[in-house]
Every structure is written in C-alpha cells, then in structure tokens.
C-alpha cells in the first residue's frame, strides 16, 4: 500500500517542538480510533522533531509505518507519515517543497510564537491528497536530482531515535498532550500489536 497518513510543518524550539500546521488522512481508521490516532501522530511527530539535529533528515521505520522528518538549519521542520512502501526519496523531496512554500508564505519571525490556529497555510490538505500518488507527486516537484539519498539517516525502529534510556511507553505515560482515551488506545495497540502506528 502506498499511502500518506499525515503531513505536518513544525517549529523546533529550544526545548520542545510546536506544530505550525498539520493535515491528516485517517480514512482507513475506524470512527472511534481516528481521534486517538491523530493525537498520537502529532505526539510522535513532535517527539521525533525534538530528537532530530537541525539540517538533517531521518527516516524512521516502525512496523508497517514510516516516518520521514527533515529539520532545516533554521529550525523549521517537516514530517510526513506514510506506510513503509512510500519511496523515501520522494517523501523527502515533498517535505522540502512544502517547507520552501511554507517559509515563503509565513514570515520566519512568526515561527517561534505561532501555533496551529494562527498560521495561515491552507494548501497543506491539498498536498496531502496530491501526494497520495507518489509517481504524480514526483513529477510535480521536479527537483528529484537535488536530493542525495545517502544523506537520509535510516532507522529501523523508533527506539533508535530516542535518547539513551528513554522509552516510548514512558514518554506516552508522562505526556500531557495525549488524552486518557488515547493512552488506553496506545496500550491496547501495543498489546495486540496491530492497527496502531508506532
């Protein structure tokens, strides 16, 4: 399956990352799961951005999901969550393009203080739809040669990205950004090992 679940633009602050804009495609999840899945994707995006050095790219594989993250030197970050069949190179090209457009639309001085409601960037959902077909999206961007695939750091599990001694379970338990129902959802998904990303 080639599918993009989420596309988000974040700002990597000194201590934590904030979401500036995000779009989700959660059709394949059941009605009662959607909320939790979305919360969880946001949480993971933030966690990963916080643990990515500026001016670097990472691809993290977790189960059947793939998380692509690019943090630019100016701390603007893009995250794309897809399944593992989505070509990494295309995903990173797309993130680059989205970030370029974002910085053209929203002045850099606003990034540090802005949040999801104050940022105007309505094209993100459109991109999410377009990117569902990587072959078309790839032709769309036409900057494919610029990207050196070897510079993307590949991780086979999310554990590899977390700092030493950190565990995702503990992070989930500690955080305030997930509701109790989402935490319960995470726990069950962990147990049954299905239907949940990461």
């Amino acid at each position, binding site marked *: *399956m080639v599918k993009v679940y989420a596309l988000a633009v974040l700002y990597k602050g000194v201590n934590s990352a904030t979401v500036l804009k995000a779009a989700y495609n959660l059709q394949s999840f*059941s009605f*009662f799961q959607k909320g939790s899945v979305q919360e969880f994707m946001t949480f993971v995006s933030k966690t990963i951005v916080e643990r990515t050095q500026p001016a670097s790219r990472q691809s993290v594989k977790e189960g059947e999901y793939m998380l692509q993250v690019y943090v630019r030197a100016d701390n603007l970050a893009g995250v794309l969550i897809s*399944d593992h*069949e989505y070509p990494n190179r295309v995903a990173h090209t797309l993130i680059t393009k989205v970030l370029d457009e974002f910085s053209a639309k929203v002045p850099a001085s606003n990034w540090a203080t802005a949040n999801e409601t104050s940022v105007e960037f309505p094209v993100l959902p459109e991109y999410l739809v377009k990117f569902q077909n990587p072959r078309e999206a790839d032709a769309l961007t036409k900057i494919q040669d610029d990207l050196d695939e070897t510079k993307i750091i590949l991780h086979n599990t999310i554990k590899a990205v977390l700092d030493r001694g950190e565990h995702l379970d503990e992070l989930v338990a500690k955080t305030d950004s997930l509701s109790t129902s989402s935490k*319960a959802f995470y726990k069950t998904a962990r147990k049954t090992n299905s239907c949940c990303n990461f």
Partner: protein
Amino acid sequence: MEEDKFALVEKIIKDVHNVLSKIAELYAFDVVPMDNNFQNKSPVLHMENCLGLESWCVKHVYMYCYTELMDKYCMKPNRKSRKLAFGCERLIKLLNVTLLLKPENNSLWNKRRELVLQALLDKTVELHFSRLVLSRKPKCNEAYAYRRWVLDSILQDDTLPVHNIESLVNDEIVICNLASDKCPNNYHSWNHRTWLLNRLTRVKSNFDIDSLFIKEYHFSEKWTSKHVSDFSCFHYYQFCLKNIYSLSDESWKILQSSLNINLRKVLVKLLATNFPKDLTIQASEENLLSYSEENLMKLLLAYANKNCKCVVDYVQLCRKVEILFHSLVLNDELIRFYKHHETLWYHRRFILHEMLMVMYDHFGLVRCKGALVKKSCKVCYFEELRQKQPKIVRYDSNHIYSSVFFNVILTHEKKIIDERRTDGDNFADRHEKYLKFVEALNSVI
C-alpha cells in the same frame, strides 16, 4: 456483586439491540479502548452511525452471552430445533452481541443460517450485520463465507430484477474496497471479490457482466499501481486480465475508449524498439499501425505448425497480446519506480508465463513434464487422444524460439534485467533464473 454485573450485562445487551434496530444506517462497529468505567455511563456508544463498545465491559459481556448461548441453544442436539421459535428473539440478541465481539466462530454463524432458513432472520438485515462485523475485522473469513451463503441464496432467484443485482454488487464492491484498504494483503476480501464475479457469470437474468469485467479491470489496474507489495490484489488483477481476454467486439470497443492510452500503439512501440536487428523486418512504427490484426499476428508468429484444421481467431489473439504487452509496460514502470518489490517481479512472471502460453498454444504445443510436446486438438483429432504424445523434434523448438514474438520478449527481458541489475535490484537475477529454469528457456537465453 455478581447480580449487579448480570443486570449490567443485560442492560448492555438491550442497548446494543436498540442500536441494531436501525441497522440499515449503521456502517461500523468497534471496541473502544477504555481501561475503567470512569464515568458510570453506558458503555454502548452510538455516534454518527457507528456502534462502539467500551473495552472494559467486553470480557464480562462476552462470557455471559457465550455461556448462555452454549448452554441453552447449542448443546442439546436431541431436543431438536422445533421449539426454537420460542426463544428466538433472545437467541438473536445473544448471537448479535457475541458475533460482533468474536466473529471467528462458525457454530454461531451456522445458528444464524438455521434462523435464515426458517425465515426468522431477514437476508438483507443479515447482509447489514455481517458488514458491521467486517468493519471491525476486515479479515474475518467466517463473515465473508456467511455473506457468500446469503448472497448465493438471494441470487438463486432468477426473477430478481437487474437493478437489484446491481445494487447488491455495488455493496459488495464497496465492502471489499474498505476491507482491502484497511488490511493490506487481505486475501479474504480479494477472494470474496473473485467469488462474486464468478458467481455473477452464472446469473440467468440479463445482467451485464462484461461491463463489470471492464470496470473491475480498470479498478484493479489502478489499485495494483498503488499497492506494490500486496500480492493478493495482484492476483485479483490477473484474474481481471484473464476475464477481458475474450470480450465481445462491442465490449472491447468500450474498453478501448475507456482507456486513456491506445493499446495497439503500446504494443507496436514495444515491438519496434525490440525487433531483432539481424532480421529483415523493415516495418516502422507507422507501418505497423496500419497492419490488420491478422497481418500483425502473422508477422509475430509467422509459422504455425498446427496439426488441426481449427481456424485461428487473429482478432482475439491480437487483443490478448495487446493486453499482455500493456500490462508488461506498466510493470516496467512500476519496477523502475518502486525498487526492490518482490510482488512486482512475481507479477512479471505471470505476464511472461501467459505470453509464452499464447505462443505455445499458437504453435500447437504444450509443456508436459518439462518437455514441449505436440498438443492434439480435441476438436479435430479425437481418436488420437489416447495415443502417447510424441516428443517434439528439435526443428520445431528452434522454429518457435526464432519467431519474432519470442525474440521481442526476450530482448525486452534482457534489457530490463540488465538495467535493474545495475541499479542493485537482486530480484533481477532471480527473474533471469526463473526464465531459465522454470520456463525452461535455459538453452536460448
């Protein structure tokens, strides 16, 4: 304490039953993870036409219902079902709850079958119910089997109006789409879809199966190009390809007009770029386009060693070849774009196998225990069937392998194998080995 729990479970059963009374509107069921009963509310959720049950109560409800079902309704084969109508409403309530929670239980589905046969359950409602089950467990084979059983009994009615069949088919296809989308490699949903199409060919009313074949062909072609490591959907695509080999002339025109490419051009382009250089074929792409089906096929498969008098349908043959080449070209693109996907290479094997079969078939040969032997035509040589088939002589096999058709395929395969190999795709080597040793082309590659 126990009394309290039973009262609660009874209430849950009642609540679920109330929601299910509007079953035609419901489209999904799910268990919602919830550690404890925090709010002292009913755990039965009903929002936006979805039915949900909080997870903390699942264990109690299931145990309670299952025990009662087994004790009262399933364990006494001697006192037979005549009395069933008496507790039938209760039985249905329990079956609903238990099957929603755990649908992998054929005994309970069989109970429902009995009720349907006694006209105590409505077939349309049953379709709705199994749909709810599939919305939570898209890989549940028991639910698909039950749907097939219900559908089969509905379709047996020859007086069923065509538009009813159409709406049934649409529902099935929507369900299969959702299920295949939720679970990659969902063998059961694709299998169900295949069953549906096969079953519809036996429907006696004038349902337009050809247009469904065309629709499904388009759909599967699109789906496979986005699900590049899901062999279940590729298998369905192959099924659809085979379905359109023998379309009627009219349907073929519809197929062609609905494609945004010209099948003949695709074929001719691939031919022109792969013609053997030493041969004296001077035809250019434009020339080839003006060829009739018969001339084009005769160019590709010049020599026919048919030992029977059956007439070759060149138009049909040409269509089959066009479809296969189109599929091959699509596969080229996918293999280049999505690297290292075994499924794509497996599909390629299918296409090549089909192409070789076309060729052997045309030359009146069949592969038997590794060797090519002459195929005796069942129409013309009825009496010869009993005799042992003679081994093919060397001259013949040389002739096949020097045909333009074969050379074009071989050149094309060599190109793609070399190209993918230099790109580091290990499956290219495997593909070559497949051609050499499984398709037994070792002597010619």
